[in-house]
């Protein structure tokens, strides 16, 4: 665990190091650290955001049926996750259950989103930190080892040494880098087939979809999926080789980005055989999701009940630029099961922005609030992270031991993924085992396994969709009326982790709406109880393995730690080294070398 003592820079050996912005889509994440170069350790870390969005403010008074179209715009990369989550919340409020075929189409669209987004992030952004050019510059001795180290899975991916794999990750020129861009395009085509458009779906609505279900639609999807599978099988083997090499080449590297195992997963891929979007049955249908929801604390599955998960959510302040809403209106005093709903729950939140100067020294320093999960057993407000999404999903699903399909099986300690023979590769069974640590490497490793998971689940969803079609079923939408008064909540997984939308309808209009995407959980500042957010916690106390001194320092280990959480696409990093010296490291595959 990180030491959380406040250390003043007078000690002499501490150097302020800041990265602001570590961009998401709209660059708004800053990491401010103090580094002890003598002891090669990060001493303090603050995660800040300088951007106010205000969705919860301007959603009020809107027609609830617009919610998914508007909230989709929260993100420019996983907007469809928001649209789908909003539809889940609306479906609960309207009391409507989409036809099964509509649900399979949504699941297929979301599976393609996980495939596309995880691939572009992993291979085009994360691996810039693990590529030849970066490792050669930051850790020359590691690069020398990599060039000589045989790749254990060379027969699967065709690269003889670890150095060869790293060379293929080089931005703009590396083979894997370029192939991944192509794969992410195919993934986006798959989403467009099912959801009409990417990033903001045009055919996803509460009550179902507007996609016309035809055999051609699903075969078009399948042919693209099979092309992706060839890449995925190779990519998993390459990822395992590189990450295992890092553990081996730099003993102690498991401490980079390591924090206590505090993971949240809100579940994904509803099962139309069970889901009815009724809050009263939420525990049952939540458990039947094809990614099981769950809260994992110190390796133990504390709950997999969506009702418990919902009621445990608390939005704390402490270091954020907002007024408290303790004296504001309580919208939902009890949930439909009669359980009391806390004042700090998203259903009862009122957003009261209070712009002010950033104060990193004991004051407020971020527009992000501090979402926490109240653990009834201990009375702790846990700063859950999502492990970049994939780690929490796999971990909760493995422990819950519920998912059992022909392609994906949870075992209690692992998740087995069976991929069929595809044009260039034989059939393959992968197994993701629960790792020893929640750290940067394991977050990154889980990501590529979850791509395989999604691809395998997509094969199952296609089987089920084809069965519906062969029975002549084409219905994809169910009619509904909007009630005057209702509440709803949607639980889903955005690509980089937990996603919830909480909705209150009065007079047929939105009275309160609060989306909670993964990055507020991961990037939250220190809360009113003094608990640091996950980025802060993971970086504080982590060792520095970079071989360069303060003058040439790139902060690669810190970047690997923060990026492992997938803080939406970090496409540009501007680095400030104090005393007016600014280094700019640009990782921007979309906008060219000088983006």
């Amino acid at each position: 665990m990180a030491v959380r003592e406040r250390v003043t820079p007078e000690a002499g050996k501490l150097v302020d190091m800041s990265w602001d912005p570590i961009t998401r889509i709209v660059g708004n994440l800053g990491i401010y650290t103090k580094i002890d170069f003598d002891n090669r350790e990060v001493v303090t870390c603050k995660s800040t955001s300088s951007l106010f969005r205000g969705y919860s403010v301007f959603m009020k008074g809107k027609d609830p049926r617009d919610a998914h179209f508007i909230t989709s715009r929260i993100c420019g990369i996983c907007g469809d996750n928001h649209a789908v989550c909003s539809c889940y919340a609306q479906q609960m409020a309207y009391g409507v259950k989409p036809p099964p075929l509509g649900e399979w189409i949504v699941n297929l669209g979301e599976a393609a989103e996980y495939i596309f987004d995880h691939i572009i992030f992993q291979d085009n952004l994360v691996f810039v930190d693990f590529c030849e050019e970066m490792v050669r510059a930051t850790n020359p001795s590691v690069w020398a080892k990599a060039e000589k180290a045989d790749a254990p899975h060379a027969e699967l991916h065709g690269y003889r040494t670890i150095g060869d794999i790293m060379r293929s990750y080089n931005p703009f020129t590396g083979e894997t880098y370029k192939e991944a861009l192509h794969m992410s395009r195919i993934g986006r085509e798959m989403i467009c087939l099912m959801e009409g458009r990417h990033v903001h779906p045009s055919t996803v609505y509460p009550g179902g979809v507007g996609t016309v279900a035809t055999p051609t639609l699903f075969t078009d999807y399948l042919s693209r999926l099979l092309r992706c599978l060839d890449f995925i099988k190779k990519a998993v083997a390459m990822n395992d080789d590189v990450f295992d090499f890092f553990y081996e080449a730099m003993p102690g590297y498991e401490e980079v980005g390591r924090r206590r195992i505090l993971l949240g997963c809100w579940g994904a891929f509803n099962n139309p055989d069970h889901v009815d979007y009724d809050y009263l049955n939420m525990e049952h249908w939540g458990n039947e999701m094809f990614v099981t929801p769950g809260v994992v604390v110190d390796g133990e599955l504390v709950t997999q009940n969506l009702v418990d998960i919902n009621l445990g959510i608390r939005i704390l302040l402490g270091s954020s630029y907002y007024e408290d809403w303790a004296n504001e209106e309580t919208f939902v005093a009890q949930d439909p099961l009669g359980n009391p709903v806390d004042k700090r729950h998203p259903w009862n939140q009122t957003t009261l922005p209070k712009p002010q100067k950033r104060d990193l020294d004991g004051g407020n320093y971020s527009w992000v609030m501090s979402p926490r999960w109240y653990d009834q057993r201990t009375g702790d407000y846990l700063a859950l992270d999502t492990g970049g999404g994939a780690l929490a999903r796999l971990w909760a699903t493995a422990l819950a031991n519920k998912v059992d399909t022909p392609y994906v099986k949870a075992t209690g300690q692992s998740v087995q993924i069976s991929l069929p023979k595809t044009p260039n590769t034989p059939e393959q069974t992968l197994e993701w085992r629960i790792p020893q640590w929640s750290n940067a490497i394991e977050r990154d490793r889980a990501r590529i396994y979850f791509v395989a998971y999604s691809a395998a689940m997509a094969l199952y969803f296609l089987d089920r969709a084809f069965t519906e079609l062969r029975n002549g079923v084409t219905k994809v939408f169910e009619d509904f009326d909007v009630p005057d008064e209702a509440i709803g909540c949607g639980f889903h997984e955005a690509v980089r982790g937990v996603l919830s939308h909480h909705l209150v309808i009065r007079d047929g209009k939105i009275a309160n709406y609060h989306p909670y995407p993964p990055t507020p959980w991961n990037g939250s500042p220190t809360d009113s109880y003094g608990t640091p957010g996950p980025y802060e916690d993971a970086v504080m106390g982590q060792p520095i393995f970079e071989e360069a001194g303060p003058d040439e320092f790139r902060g690669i280990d810190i970047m690997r730690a923060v990026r492992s959480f997938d803080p939406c696409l970090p496409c540009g990093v501007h680095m400030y080294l104090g005393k007016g010296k600014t280094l700019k490291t640009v990782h921007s595959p979309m906008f060219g070398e000088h983006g």
Partner: protein
Amino acid sequence: MKVGKPDVKPDAPSHVKGIKAGNSKGNYERQSGHNPDGTSTAARSTGVNPKAHDPIDPSMPNLSPG
């Protein structure tokens, strides 16, 4: 350039109560070619004279377009 006074505030909700909504209950049944059991027929292909799209020979299967 002179423009008129706007009739609607920018934050007005997109739906006005009382106006027919496409999502309302009962609309599925009113659409041609959509059967109550979730299957559909050739009549689904258009709202203009949809019956004309049914097969010319009753012994032929009445398939949904696509």
